[in-house]
């Protein structure tokens, strides 16, 4: 039985008891979040294996007979699409959005629990349709994750018969699922906040998820429209995107369509998609850093403004992905300018994370390690983005490994760093158990250093002119043999990073059963999700009475307060203060007496 999102509930007895209602057809946002997360991680692991196969081919060409050029490009396509849409978007918004929104704003559930449940099952359907393409004649599409026409639907491209159809269908289904979930998230944030939870008292995680969801709601229609129009071109023979062309010596029936139009539509979705993934990551990492540095987030208002500004600007930069497609030079100038402008609020965020750490009481928990790792990887990925935002720099680099390195650092490694930080941070609330710190630290260091071993050399390969999307480099005059040696070392590093994720999976499963009990608020966090009556929170989250919010989300190390954190639901009169000796002036070192809670080793 669903709960009303915001209502006191004297009778706590109507929790579902049967397995099927509790775990399968559950309308509890926490269960749905876990369903989303498990599915996304499962499909993400498939994409990880695909990347391993790609790297095997690139590092050791002509060694593995089962990786032919078609299979290689199919792996590239499926790896990209799965990681961007079905893992990152689904895990940040469907997983963490679902789990955190009601708990962090003090609601019992989403506003529309049934729609929320439906959202997950439709998402699962989209995943099944996508994975089905591995088993149809011709295999999955090999059109590249951008699915550019005309080649995406023409013979000669792998999966041009069934693979592309299933991909487009799966995307359309995913967008339906996202819209159902997204409407829930924004409505819940706007209408179901607990008493006292004003918008500017919301934790930054919620701000990031909220603005990212609005971006998703406004950007995914572009992908939906392009998917439908391409389906028409493929199935009915319309010419929305298909020009008059000769394919394999045969004049096709298409005429007059514009492939560039598809590119505009795709990137009108594609660029905001970067921020659909990045904004929740920005928000969540802010909360992890503030909590584990025992310090209020530096520049909270700037952080909120930056999230909103980045969200708005993300809709007017899309054509920087299309410099090589050719455009009016004035447009190139416009999009280069907007791209550089968007770096300003982004840089403000980076400064604020660093300034939050400055003189903080930093606890190097695994979550904190991943959060600090994110600041490094995001700064590197962001800086190379500034290079590529300029037309004259982008043109020679666009089709090289420099771009692969850039977007993997900024959009692959960085959000995943935050995902790991978030999992290590919130796992104790979700399960009531700690993840093992030793395994967590090993996982962090191998992943962090490993990704640098993978992507730093790729920048160099890009400068050498090594082209991306190629199955094998072959013999060229301008690429030295050492590039291949570097490729081999990248592959070895990538495989090690891939295998290191097994430590994480093992840690999850092991700690689920044998992890140390975490208690209600192991990190000494201020936000509402750590103040629930039960850990893990029960269906309905808050027992009989909803929490009431009295302060913002970052009251850490408040001078003269006994504890180094004051939860959001504690009223001023309930805060325990320490007596200050009259003779001694106020000394900040008093705040450091209580080192705060930490992670068991």
């Amino acid at each position, binding site marked *: 039985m669903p709960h009303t999102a915001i209502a006191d509930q004297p009778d706590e007895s109507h929790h579902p008891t049967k397995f099927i209602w509790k775990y399968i057809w559950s309308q509890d946002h926490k269960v749905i979040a876990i369903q989303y997360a498990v599915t996304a991680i499962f499909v993400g692991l498939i994409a990880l294996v695909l990347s391993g196969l790609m790297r095997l081919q690139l590092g050791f060409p002509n060694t593995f007979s089962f990786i032919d050029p078609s299979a290689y490009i199919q792996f590239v396509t499926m790896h990209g699409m799965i990681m961007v849409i079905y893992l990152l978007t689904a895990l940040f918004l469907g997983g963490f959005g679902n789990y955190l929104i009601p708990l962090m704003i003090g609601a019992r559930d989403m506003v529309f629990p049934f729609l929320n449940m439906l959202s997950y099952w439709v998402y699962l359907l989209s995943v099944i349709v996508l994975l089905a393409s591995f088993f149809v004649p011709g295999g999955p599409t090999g059109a590249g994750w951008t699915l550019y026409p005309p080649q995406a639907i023409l013979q000669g491209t792998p999966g041009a018969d069934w693979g592309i159809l299933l991909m487009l269908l799966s995307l359309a289904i995913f967008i339906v699922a996202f819209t159902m979930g997204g409407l829930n998230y924004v409505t819940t944030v706007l209408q179901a906040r607990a008493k006292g939870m004003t918008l500017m008292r919301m934790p930054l995680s919620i701000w990031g998820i909220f603005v990212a969801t*609005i971006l998703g709601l406004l950007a995914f*229609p572009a992908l939906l*429209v392009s998917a439908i129009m391409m389906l028409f071109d493929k199935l009915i023979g319309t010419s929305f995107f298909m020009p008059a062309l000769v394919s394999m010596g045969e004049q096709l029936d298409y005429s*007059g369509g514009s492939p560039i139009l598809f590119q505009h539509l795709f990137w009108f979705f594609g660029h905001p998609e970067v921020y659909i993934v990045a904004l929740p990551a920005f928000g969540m990492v802010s909360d992890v850093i503030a909590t584990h540095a025992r310090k209020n987030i530096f520049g909270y208002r700037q952080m909120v403004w930056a999230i909103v500004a980045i969200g708005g600007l993300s809709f007017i930069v899309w054509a920087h992905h299309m410099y090589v497609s050719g455009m009016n030079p004035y447009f190139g100038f416009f999009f280069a300018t907007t791209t550089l402008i968007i770096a300003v609020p982004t840089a403000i965020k980076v400064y604020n994370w660093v300034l939050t750490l400055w003189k903080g009481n930093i606890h190097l928990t695994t979550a904190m390690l991943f959060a600090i790792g994110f600041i490094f990887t995001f700064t590197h990925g962001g800086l190379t983005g500034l290079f590529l935002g300029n037309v004259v720099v982008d043109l020679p680099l666009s089709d090289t490994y420099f771009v692969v390195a850039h977007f993997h650092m900024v959009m692959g490694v960085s959000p995943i760093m935050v995902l790991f930080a978030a999992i290590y941070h919130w796992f104790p609330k979700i399960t009531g158990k700690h993840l093992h710190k030793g395994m967590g630290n090993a996982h962090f260091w191998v992943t962090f250093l490993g990704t640098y071993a993978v992507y730093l050399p790729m920048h160099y390969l890009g400068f050498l002119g090594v082209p991306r999307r190629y199955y094998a480099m072959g013999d060229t005059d301008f690429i030295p043999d050492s590039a291949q040696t570097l490729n081999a070392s990248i592959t070895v590093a990538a495989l090690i990073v891939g295998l290191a994720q097994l430590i994480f999976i093992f840690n999850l499963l092991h700690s689920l059963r044998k992890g140390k009990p975490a208690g209600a608020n192991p990190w000494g966090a201020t936000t509402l999700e750590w103040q629930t009556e039960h850990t893990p929170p029960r269906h309905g989250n808050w027992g009989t009475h909803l929490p009431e919010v009295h302060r913002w989300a970052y009251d850490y190390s408040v001078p003269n307060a006994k504890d180094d954190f004051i939860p959001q639901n504690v009223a001023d009169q309930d805060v325990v203060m320490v007596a200050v000796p009259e003779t001694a002036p106020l000394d900040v070192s008093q705040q450091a007496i209580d080192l705060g809670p930490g992670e068991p080793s």
Partner: protein
Amino acid sequence: MSLLKTLAEKPWLPPMAGAGFAPPHGLIPSAAGRTALKFFIAVASVIFFLLTITFLSRTQYPDFQALAGEPWQPFSNTSQLWLNTAILLLASIALRWGVVSSRQQNLGQITIALVAASLFSMMFLFAQFAVWQQLYSLGYFVSSNPANSYFYLFTGIHGLHLLGGLVALARCTVLFTTRRDCTQLNRGLALCRSYWDFLLLIWLFLFLLLTLSSASYRAIAVLCGF
């Protein structure tokens, strides 16, 4: 503006006495429904907006043949489309009547309004389908010209949105027949009314857009910079 005022708040400072730092406590179902509908309408608007942009761009390609403007073009005579418009307008009016009736808790009028709204909406869908058939019989197939392709695409997507609305209306009706709760029905019908009004506006826009002459498309494209 209240949004700017909100974003300018300094949440780390204690609220001033009587500053009203608390949003209303307790979920207001009508407000939740309205918020969700506003966002859904925004999503649907983006879909039609993007299709319109691509359409206007496509009108300037040499193979594009407008469906109106010349006497032999199918939409030189738009009487059938006007009839369809009237049917959708009637559905919208019936829903408004339903909202008023449910507020007055007049069971008889509620029933008539619900039946009328559903019937007129379904009639609109059938009438649109009839237009498709007429076009098809005249040789205007989906793929034979981009103007045709867009007509089928636009009207198909519009019809699907109306179909979705009908599902929501059916849910309101079923809930009402089981619970006899006029307040709940009123809430649901108010949302349906807003949605139908939106779909009527979209249809009027599409009607105008799809029945322009080539010269008009040229003028709009020049204005838009295509």
